[in-house]
C-alpha cells in the first residue's frame, strides 16, 4: 500500500506541475504579451511598466514561473482587471455555490441511478430493464443545457412551481436555497445518473453470477439480503470510481448549468471573465479548478484502492 500511495501521489504531483506550467504559459501566449492582458483598460506606459515591475516580467521565464507559483501558493492570484478585487477573494465567495450545486447533483445521480440500476439488473431482459436502459440512454444523449431550458419551460413558466433562475445562500434561507437548486441539480445530475445506472446494472449482473452470491442463496438467505447485502456491496465499489471519473464532466456541466439558471458560481465567473478578457480571473479559476480536480481524482483513486484490495496488491508490484 505504501509504495502504491507514494507512486500515485508522485504521479499526481508531476501532472499538477505540468498543468501549472500550461496555465502559466497561457497568459504569456497572448498577442501583445501578458502585460496588456493584465492591464485591462489602463494601457498607458506607466501602468504597463508598473505591471511589468509587479509581475517581474523582465526576469527570465523560469524565475517568472517561480515567482508566480510561490505567490499563488500563498493565495495571491493577482487582482481582477475589471473590479480590482483580489482574485482569491472572488474565488472564495463563488466556490461554495458551485460545490453545493455539484454535491447536490451527485446526490441526485446516486438516488436515481443506484435503485434503477439494481432494478434493471434483477429484472434483466424484462420490461423494467428495457425502460430503465432506455431512460438512461435518453439521459446520456440529451444535452443538459437543453434539458435545463425545457425544465424552466415546464416548471417555471407553464406550471410556476419553482424559480426559473437566481440563487439564495443556504444559511440565510435553506428552503429557498433548495427551491432554487432543485432544477439545476437535476439538470447537472441527470447525465451522471444515466452513467451510474448503466454501471450499476452491469456491475450487479456480474456480482449476481459470482459464487458467493450463489452460496448466499443456497444458505437460504432471502432474495432481499442476497441482493441488498452481498451483491450490492461489490457493485458500489465500481460506482465510487465512476463518480470520480465523471468529476470533470460535472465541472464542465456546472459551467453551463450556472449560465442557464443564473447561479453566481465558478462556472458563471469564468464565462464572464472570458467575455471581459479578465485574464487574472481566468487564470486563477483554471488553476484552482484543475488543482482541485487532480486532487479529487487522487482521493477517489486512493479510496478505490482501500475498497478493493486486489488493486492495492497489484499496485505494490513493480
Amino acid at each position, binding site marked *: 500500500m505504501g509504495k502504491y500511495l507514494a507512486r500515485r501521489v508522485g504521479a499526481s504531483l508531476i*501532472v499538477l506541475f505540468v498543468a501549472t506550467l500550461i496555465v502559466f504559459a497561457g497568459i504569456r501566449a497572448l498577442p501583445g504579451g501578458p502585460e496588456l492582458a493584465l492591464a485591462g483598460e489602463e494601457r498607458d506606459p506607466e501602468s504597463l511598466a508598473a505591471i511589468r515591475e509587479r509581475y517581474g516580467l523582465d526576469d527570465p521565464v523560469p524565475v517568472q514561473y517561480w515567482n508566480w507559483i510561490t505567490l499563488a501558493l500563498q493565495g495571491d492570484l493577482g487582482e481582477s482587471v475589471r473590479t480590482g478585487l483580489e482574485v482569491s477573494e472572488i474565488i472564495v465567495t463563488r466556490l461554495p455555490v458551485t460545490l453545493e450545486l455539484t454535491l447536490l447533483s451527485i446526490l441526485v445521480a446516486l438516488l436515481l441511478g443506484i435503485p434503477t440500476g439494481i432494478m434493471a439488473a434483477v429484472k434483466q431482459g424484462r420490461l423494467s430493464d428495457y425502460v430503465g436502459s432506455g431512460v438512461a440512454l435518453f439521459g446520456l444523449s440529451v444535452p443538459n443545457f*437543453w434539458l435545463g431550458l425545457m425544465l424552466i419551460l415546464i416548471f417555471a413558466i407553464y406550471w410556476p412551481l419553482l424559480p426559473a433562475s437566481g440563487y439564495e445562500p443556504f444559511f440565510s434561507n435553506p428552503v429557498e436555497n433548495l427551491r432554487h437548486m432543485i432544477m439545476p441539480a437535476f439538470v447537472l445530475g441527470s447525465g451522471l445518473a444515466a452513467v451510474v445506472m448503466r454501471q450499476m446494472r452491469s456491475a450487479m449482473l456480474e456480482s449476481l453470477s459470482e459464487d458467493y452470491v450463489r452460496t448466499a442463496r443456497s444458505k437460504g438467505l432471502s432474495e432481499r439480503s442476497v441482493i441488498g447485502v452481498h451483491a450490492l456491496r461489490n457493485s458500489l465499489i465500481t460506482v465510487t470510481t465512476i463518480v470520480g471519473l465523471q468529476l470533470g*464532466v460535472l465541472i464542465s456541466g456546472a459551467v*453551463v448549468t450556472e449560465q442557464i439558471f443564473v447561479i453566481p458560481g465558478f462556472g458563471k465567473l469564468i464565462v464572464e471573465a472570458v467575455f471581459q478578457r479578465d485574464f487574472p480571473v481566468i487564470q486563477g*479559476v483554471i488553476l484552482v479548478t484543475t488543482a482541485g*480536480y487532480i486532487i479529487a481524482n487522487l482521493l477517489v483513486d486512493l479510496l478505490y484502492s482501500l475498497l478493493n484490495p486486489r488493486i492495492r496488491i497489484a499496485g505494490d508490484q513493480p
Partner: protein
Amino acid sequence: MTTAEIALTPGARRRARLRRRFLKRPPAVFGLVFSVLMVVVALLAPVLAPFDPAQQDFAATLQQPGGAHLLGTDELGRDVLSRIIFGARASIQVGVLATLLAIVVAVPLGLIAGYYRGWWDPIIMRFTDVLLSFPFLILAVGLAAILGPSLMNATLALGISQIPQVIRVMRGEVLGLREEDYVAAAVADGATDRVILGRYILPNALSPLLVQATVAIPIAIIGESLLSFLGLGVQPPTPSWGVMLAGAQSYITQGPWLALFPGLAIFLTTMSFNLLGDGLRDVLDPKMTLV
C-alpha cells in the same frame, strides 16, 4: 451456407457476417440511418432548406409552427427549419473534424506507447494524464480566451480534449496485439517495425478505433452546441443549434418552440450516433461490456 457464399474470400465472408449481425439490431440500424441522414442534410443544406436561413421577415416574427414556416419563425422572422438544417453543418463539421484531429494525433502516440513501451510509454501516458487533468470545458474556455471564440477554435479545443481517450484505447489494443503469435512470427521473419505496425497491428486495431470514433463524434457535437450556446463557438448570425438555443433563452415565454426544436435536433443526432456506436461495439467486439 449457400454456394455463392462459399466462393467468397474469408474477408468478404466476415464482412457479410458482421453486416447480418448489425442488421439484427433495430436501434443500431436506426442510429446508422439517422446519422447518415444528418450528414446528408448538412451536405445538401442549400438544396433542402425551404428558406434562406439569414433572411429576416419583420412581418412574420415569432410565428408558431405550422403553415408556411413548418417549425415557426424566430424573433427576427427567420425560418427555424431552415436554420436547423444549416445548423447541422456546424455540428457535423465539428463532430467529424474534432474526431479526425484526435485520431491523427493520438493514433501514432498510442502505437508508440503500446508497441515500443520503454521510456516512451510513461512519457506519453503522463501526457495523457495532463490533458485529462483539465475538465474539457475549462480547457475549451481557456483556449477561447487565448485564441478568441470561433468555430475553428472550438473544433481545436474539442479535438484536443478527445486525444487522451483515443491514446488510451489505441495503447491498450496494441499492448494486447503485440503479444499475438502472428506478430511474433513476423518478428522472426525479420519484418521491420514499420511493416509490423502497418500491416499486422494497425489493421487489427481499427475496430476499437471505429467504436471510439462513434463515441467521440456525439461528444464533439454536444460540445460544439454547448460552446456556441455560451458564445464561445459559432458566432451569430451563422446558424448553429447552440447559437439558436442561446437566442431562444430570451424568448422562452413568447416562443417556446425556439428552444424546443434545435434541442431536439441535437438530441436526436447525438442519440443516433450513440446507438450506432453501441451497435458497432456489440458487433465488432463482443468482449467489451456496455458502460
